[in-house]
């Protein structure tokens, strides 16, 4: 074997044996280091997977959503606004939606009740069983799996909710959405727009928002600008804005993300401070003996580098592996209490993290590289002094 390579291998052997001699301390460091990396990589994998799912799932989100704003709050929008929009060239269709939230006092679940004016027949393919509500029969609904669990109907097809003024409205379940679509439909209760109006007491001259379909998707931004000029008391949300929101909303800038990052950094700084604050007399004496035996300063630095590399690289592998398992097989169980909060209706996530080079590089830059630096510097300082004074 090449003598240079053999020499480096011998130094690596020496470094690993040196680590093993102080195994209790080094295993503790490895464990803490791996936990820090686990926390950071878990969060990175989770937010990356959620961003990916959002970008794929919402690629066909409404091209333009128009909401009426009154005193800084969203209010019901007059249907007549839709007629005004027809004046804008390039708009193909304006569709009103009536939707809102219903808080179930018995279960504590918050259900999103969505009324649409017409059902695309292709929606049948998204149903686990049953059919879509027919326009002719009142009170027919399709439920998301989260609502099915929340209501616990036990095979019954009829149930009742109280309207805001405490009169009862009875619904009939005609179908359920597939569990695979839970990330979109878990809390949905889809019905005809007439039922939604009836339940929320919204008159036929108003809707919750208007969905605008344009003839040419390349003109979305132009038409959105024209709508904002024509109806200055509205908020206009475009599909690219929705996708941009989901590109930015999951990340380190959130409160929880910052806590994860700062916790990881604080733990790491304590770890690094311990290393950088100097070496123990025993370690200094070891370096002195090595130099007396003829080792060069570069050899001593190589030993310390290999030791730090072994610890940090093993911690990186362990931490990232645990982070991946946490997200892919345990649905990010440690983050769920924050991500879902007090939500009673929650989806099953079934996320598959995508391991990106950039994500791993970020973790390496925050942990491995600084650790290598802080362990080399004190070793260099100790190796620079004459052997006799190092041993004294």
């Amino acid at each position, binding site marked *: 074997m090449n003598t240079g390579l053999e020499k480096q291998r011998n130094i690596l052997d020496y470094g690993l044996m040196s680590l093993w001699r102080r195994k209790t301390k080094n295993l503790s460091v490895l464990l803490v280091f791996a936990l820090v990396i686990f926390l950071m990589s878990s969060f990175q994998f989770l937010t990356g997977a959620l961003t990916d799912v959002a970008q794929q799932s*919402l690629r066909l989100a409404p091209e333009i959503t128009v909401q009426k704003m009154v005193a800084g709050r969203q209010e019901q929008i007059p249907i007549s606004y839709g007629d005004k929009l027809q004046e804008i060239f390039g708009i193909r269709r304006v569709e009103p939606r009536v939707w809102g939230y219903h808080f179930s006092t018995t279960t504590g679940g918050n259900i999103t009740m969505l009324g649409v004016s017409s059902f695309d027949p292709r929606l049948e393919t998204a149903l686990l069983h049953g059919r879509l509500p027919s326009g002719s029969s009142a009170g027919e609904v399709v439920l998301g799996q989260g609502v099915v669990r929340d209501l616990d109907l036990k095979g019954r097809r009829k149930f009742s909710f109280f309207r805001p003024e405490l009169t009862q409205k009875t619904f009939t379940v005609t179908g359920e*959405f597939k569990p695979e679509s839970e990330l979109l439909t878990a809390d949905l209760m889809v019905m005809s727009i007439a039922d939604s109006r009836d339940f929320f007491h919204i008159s036929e001259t108003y809707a919750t928002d208007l969905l605008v379909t344009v003839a040419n998707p390349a003109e979305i931004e132009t038409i959105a600008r024209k709508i904002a000029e024509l109806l200055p008391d509205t908020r206009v949300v475009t599909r690219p804005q929705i996708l941009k*929101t*989901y590109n930015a909303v999951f990340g380190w800038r959130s409160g929880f993300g910052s806590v994860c990052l700062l916790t990881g950094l604080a733990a790491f700084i304590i770890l690094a401070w311990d290393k950088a604050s100097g070496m123990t007399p025993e370690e200094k004496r070891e370096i002195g003996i090595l130099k007396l035996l003829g080792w060069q300063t570069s050899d001593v630095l190589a030993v310390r580098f290999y030791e730090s590399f072994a610890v940090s690289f093993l911690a990186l592998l362990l931490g990232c*592996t645990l982070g991946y398992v946490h997200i892919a097989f345990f649905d990010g169980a440690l983050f769920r209490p924050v991500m*879902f909060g007090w939500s009673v209706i929650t989806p099953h996530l079934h996320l*598959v993290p995508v391991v990106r080079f950039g994500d791993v590089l970020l973790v390496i830059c925050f942990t491995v590289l600084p650790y290598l630096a802080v362990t080399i510097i004190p070793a260099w300082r100790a190796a620079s002094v004459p052997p006799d004074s190092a041993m004294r």
Partner: protein
Amino acid sequence: MRPSSFFLVLLVTLALGDGALLLLSSSQMRSPQDQQEEGVLVAGLGLTDLCLATEARYTRNVSITDPIAPFMDYPGALEHFPSGSFYGVTQ
């Protein structure tokens, strides 16, 4: 066995384990049919958001809510829903 050989074996074993994990989890990936059905759902119902946290309207419908929604409920209201801390600022 030399320590360096043992270390190499350890790294290779861990790397192989990671590869097996990736293969195992890739079987859970959403099929093209699932993605097509999601597209039909989103387009057919006009969905604008993922259903993650359902506790507050500003975390249920992140993309069409106000950035200041948590503080709009009543004068001096502070955000108290845990999921609010999970979502970052979008503007």
